[in-house]
Protein backbone atom coordinates (compact mmCIF):
# COMPACT_ATOMS: atom_id res chain seq x y z
CA UNK A 1 0.00 0.00 0.00
CA UNK A 2 1.66 3.22 -1.18
CA UNK A 3 0.00 6.31 0.27
CA UNK A 4 -0.93 9.04 -2.18
CA UNK A 5 0.14 12.42 -0.80
CA UNK A 6 -0.33 15.67 -2.69
CA UNK A 7 0.18 19.33 -1.79
CA UNK A 8 -1.42 21.43 -4.51
CA UNK A 9 -3.11 24.72 -5.33
CA UNK A 10 -5.77 23.07 -7.49
CA UNK A 11 -9.04 21.72 -6.09
CA UNK A 12 -9.31 17.94 -5.79
CA UNK A 13 -11.93 15.59 -7.19
CA UNK A 14 -13.43 13.36 -4.49
CA UNK A 15 -15.01 10.97 -7.00
CA UNK A 16 -11.75 10.53 -8.93
CA UNK A 17 -9.77 10.00 -5.72
CA UNK A 18 -12.30 7.46 -4.49
CA UNK A 19 -12.20 5.60 -7.81
CA UNK A 20 -8.40 5.55 -7.62
CA UNK A 21 -8.54 3.58 -4.36
CA UNK A 22 -11.26 1.13 -5.37
CA UNK A 23 -11.21 0.70 -9.17
CA UNK A 24 -10.58 -2.85 -10.33
CA UNK A 25 -10.38 -4.34 -6.84
CA UNK A 26 -12.83 -6.32 -4.73
CA UNK A 27 -11.13 -6.44 -1.35
CA UNK A 28 -12.13 -2.97 -0.08
CA UNK A 29 -15.09 -3.22 2.30
CA UNK A 30 -15.01 0.31 3.72
CA UNK A 31 -13.94 3.67 2.44
CA UNK A 32 -13.89 6.61 4.85
CA UNK A 33 -13.32 10.19 3.80
CA UNK A 34 -13.04 13.58 5.39
CA UNK A 35 -13.16 16.84 3.46
CA UNK A 36 -12.30 20.06 5.28
CA UNK A 37 -13.83 23.19 3.74
CA UNK A 38 -13.29 26.91 4.13
CA UNK A 39 -16.10 28.49 6.18
CA UNK A 40 -17.14 32.12 5.70
CA UNK A 41 -17.03 33.03 9.40
CA UNK A 42 -17.05 36.70 10.41
CA UNK A 43 -17.00 38.12 6.87
CA UNK A 44 -14.06 36.03 5.68
CA UNK A 45 -13.16 36.82 2.07
CA UNK A 46 -10.50 34.16 1.60
CA UNK A 47 -8.08 31.85 3.39
CA UNK A 48 -4.46 31.82 2.25
CA UNK A 49 -2.51 28.67 3.08
CA UNK A 50 1.27 28.60 3.34
CA UNK A 51 3.41 25.52 3.97
CA UNK A 52 7.02 24.36 4.33
CA UNK A 53 7.81 22.58 1.06
CA UNK A 54 9.82 19.45 1.70
CA UNK A 55 9.00 19.17 5.40
CA UNK A 56 5.26 19.01 4.65
CA UNK A 57 5.61 15.95 2.44
CA UNK A 58 8.00 14.29 4.94
CA UNK A 59 5.69 14.94 7.88
CA UNK A 60 2.60 13.64 6.07
CA UNK A 61 4.49 10.59 4.77
CA UNK A 62 5.52 9.76 8.34
CA UNK A 63 1.95 10.15 9.62
CA UNK A 64 0.65 8.01 6.74
CA UNK A 65 3.21 5.30 7.51
CA UNK A 66 2.12 5.34 11.15
CA UNK A 67 -1.53 4.96 10.10
CA UNK A 68 -0.63 2.04 7.81
CA UNK A 69 1.22 0.48 10.74
CA UNK A 70 -1.72 0.83 13.15
CA UNK A 71 -4.58 -0.18 10.84
CA UNK A 72 -4.78 -2.76 8.02
CA UNK A 73 -5.22 -0.24 5.20
CA UNK A 74 -5.63 -1.02 1.52
CA UNK A 75 -5.40 2.63 0.44
CA UNK A 76 -4.64 6.05 1.89
CA UNK A 77 -4.86 9.46 0.24
CA UNK A 78 -4.06 12.88 1.71
CA UNK A 79 -4.46 15.97 -0.45
CA UNK A 80 -3.90 19.40 1.10
CA UNK A 81 -4.38 22.58 -0.84
CA UNK A 82 -2.14 25.63 -0.45
CA UNK A 83 -2.50 29.17 -1.74
CA UNK A 84 -5.77 31.10 -1.86
CA UNK A 85 -9.01 29.29 -1.02
CA UNK A 86 -12.41 30.96 -1.02
CA UNK A 87 -15.31 30.33 1.37
CA UNK A 88 -17.17 27.15 0.47
CA UNK A 89 -14.15 25.61 -1.24
CA UNK A 90 -12.46 22.40 -0.06
CA UNK A 91 -9.04 22.63 1.66
CA UNK A 92 -8.09 19.11 2.65
CA UNK A 93 -9.04 15.54 1.78
CA UNK A 94 -8.28 12.39 3.76
CA UNK A 95 -9.40 9.09 2.27
CA UNK A 96 -8.77 5.64 3.74
CA UNK A 97 -9.71 2.19 2.45
CA UNK A 98 -9.73 -1.09 4.35
CA UNK A 99 -11.44 -4.47 4.31
CA UNK A 100 -13.48 -3.38 7.35
CA UNK A 101 -15.17 -0.17 8.37
CA UNK A 102 -13.51 0.40 11.75
CA UNK A 103 -9.98 0.57 10.31
CA UNK A 104 -11.10 2.99 7.60
CA UNK A 105 -13.06 5.26 9.99
CA UNK A 106 -10.47 5.35 12.76
CA UNK A 107 -7.47 5.93 10.49
CA UNK A 108 -9.33 8.74 8.69
CA UNK A 109 -10.03 10.50 12.02
CA UNK A 110 -6.43 9.89 13.15
CA UNK A 111 -4.99 11.43 9.99
CA UNK A 112 -7.09 14.59 10.04
CA UNK A 113 -6.38 15.09 13.75
CA UNK A 114 -2.64 14.82 13.06
CA UNK A 115 -2.76 17.08 10.02
CA UNK A 116 -4.11 19.81 12.29
CA UNK A 117 -1.13 19.62 14.66
CA UNK A 118 1.72 17.76 12.96
CA UNK A 119 2.06 19.12 9.44
CA UNK A 120 3.65 22.54 8.71
CA UNK A 121 0.74 24.49 7.25
CA UNK A 122 -0.33 27.97 8.28
CA UNK A 123 -3.62 29.69 7.48
CA UNK A 124 -4.03 33.43 7.02
CA UNK A 125 -7.56 34.83 6.92
CA UNK A 126 -8.35 37.77 4.68
CA UNK A 127 -11.50 39.72 5.50
CA UNK A 128 -13.75 41.97 3.48
CA UNK A 129 -12.33 45.47 3.92
CA UNK A 130 -8.71 44.30 3.81
CA UNK A 131 -7.98 43.18 7.37
CA UNK A 132 -6.02 39.98 7.74
CA UNK A 133 -5.23 37.61 10.59
CA UNK A 134 -3.15 34.47 11.06
CA UNK A 135 -5.27 31.63 12.39
CA UNK A 136 -4.13 30.62 15.88
CA UNK A 137 -3.50 27.02 16.86
CA UNK A 138 -6.25 25.54 19.04
CA UNK A 139 -5.69 23.64 22.28
CA UNK A 140 -8.65 21.46 21.25
CA UNK A 141 -6.67 20.32 18.19
CA UNK A 142 -3.69 19.35 20.36
CA UNK A 143 -6.04 17.39 22.61
CA UNK A 144 -7.63 15.65 19.61
CA UNK A 145 -4.22 14.60 18.28
CA UNK A 146 -3.01 13.52 21.74
CA UNK A 147 -5.82 10.99 22.17
CA UNK A 148 -4.22 8.86 19.41
CA UNK A 149 -0.89 8.57 21.27
CA UNK A 150 -0.19 5.02 22.45
CA UNK A 151 -0.75 4.75 26.22
Amino acid sequence: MTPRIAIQEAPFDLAAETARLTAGRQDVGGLASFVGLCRADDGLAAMVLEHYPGMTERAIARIAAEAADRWPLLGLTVIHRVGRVEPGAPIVLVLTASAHRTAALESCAFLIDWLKTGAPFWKREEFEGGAERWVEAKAADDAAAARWKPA
Partner: protein
Amino acid sequence: MRILYFAWVKQRIGVGEEELSPPPEVRDVAGLIDWLAGRSPGHAEAFANRKTIRAAVNQDFAGPDHPVAAGDEVAFFPPVTGG
Protein backbone atom coordinates in the same frame (compact mmCIF):
# COMPACT_ATOMS: atom_id res chain seq x y z
CA MET B 1 23.42 27.35 7.89
CA ARG B 2 20.17 27.79 5.99
CA ILE B 3 17.53 29.61 8.03
CA LEU B 4 13.88 29.58 6.91
CA TYR B 5 10.93 31.61 8.21
CA PHE B 6 7.21 30.98 7.71
CA ALA B 7 3.86 32.70 8.31
CA TRP B 8 4.03 35.79 10.58
CA VAL B 9 7.65 35.05 11.52
CA LYS B 10 8.50 35.55 7.85
CA GLN B 11 6.31 38.68 7.61
CA ARG B 12 8.03 40.31 10.61
CA ILE B 13 11.56 39.49 9.47
CA GLY B 14 10.76 40.49 5.91
CA VAL B 15 12.48 37.57 4.17
CA GLY B 16 11.67 33.87 3.98
CA GLU B 17 15.22 32.60 3.91
CA GLU B 18 18.73 33.57 5.03
CA GLU B 19 22.08 31.86 4.55
CA LEU B 20 24.02 32.62 7.77
CA SER B 21 27.11 31.50 9.68
CA PRO B 22 26.38 31.86 13.39
CA PRO B 23 29.38 32.08 15.74
CA PRO B 24 30.60 28.81 17.35
CA GLU B 25 28.91 29.55 20.68
CA VAL B 26 25.51 29.05 18.96
CA ARG B 27 25.03 25.33 19.63
CA ASP B 28 21.27 24.76 19.88
CA VAL B 29 17.89 26.12 18.72
CA ALA B 30 17.53 28.39 21.78
CA GLY B 31 21.02 29.84 21.24
CA LEU B 32 20.28 30.40 17.57
CA ILE B 33 17.09 32.30 18.42
CA ASP B 34 19.05 34.54 20.86
CA TRP B 35 21.58 35.29 18.17
CA LEU B 36 19.00 35.85 15.40
CA ALA B 37 16.93 38.20 17.60
CA GLY B 38 19.86 40.63 17.67
CA ARG B 39 20.18 40.90 13.90
CA SER B 40 17.46 43.52 13.22
CA PRO B 41 14.36 45.11 14.76
CA GLY B 42 12.28 42.77 12.58
CA HIS B 43 14.11 39.72 13.95
CA ALA B 44 13.69 41.07 17.48
CA GLU B 45 9.95 41.49 16.95
CA ALA B 46 9.57 38.04 15.38
CA PHE B 47 11.32 36.32 18.29
CA ALA B 48 9.94 38.57 21.07
CA ASN B 49 7.63 35.87 22.48
CA ARG B 50 9.54 32.58 22.43
CA LYS B 51 6.46 30.61 23.52
CA THR B 52 4.80 31.32 20.18
CA ILE B 53 7.76 30.11 18.11
CA ARG B 54 8.22 26.56 16.86
CA ALA B 55 11.34 25.24 15.15
CA ALA B 56 12.39 22.46 12.81
CA VAL B 57 15.95 21.26 12.25
CA ASN B 58 16.51 19.50 8.94
CA GLN B 59 12.73 19.31 8.45
CA ASP B 60 11.91 17.64 11.77
CA PHE B 61 10.22 19.48 14.64
CA ALA B 62 12.89 20.39 17.22
CA GLY B 63 12.80 21.75 20.78
CA PRO B 64 14.97 24.57 22.17
CA ASP B 65 17.71 22.13 23.26
CA HIS B 66 18.06 20.53 19.84
CA PRO B 67 21.64 21.02 18.52
CA VAL B 68 22.28 23.06 15.39
CA ALA B 69 25.45 22.99 13.27
CA ALA B 70 26.86 24.37 10.04
CA GLY B 71 25.07 22.83 7.06
CA ASP B 72 21.76 22.40 8.90
CA GLU B 73 18.46 23.70 7.59
CA VAL B 74 16.69 25.40 10.50
CA ALA B 75 13.15 26.77 10.23
CA PHE B 76 11.14 29.03 12.56
CA PHE B 77 7.38 29.44 12.47
CA PRO B 78 4.22 29.77 14.59
CA PRO B 79 2.30 26.70 15.81
CA VAL B 80 0.89 24.94 12.74
CA THR B 81 -2.75 25.43 11.66
CA GLY B 82 -3.32 23.04 8.77
CA GLY B 83 -6.08 20.55 8.09
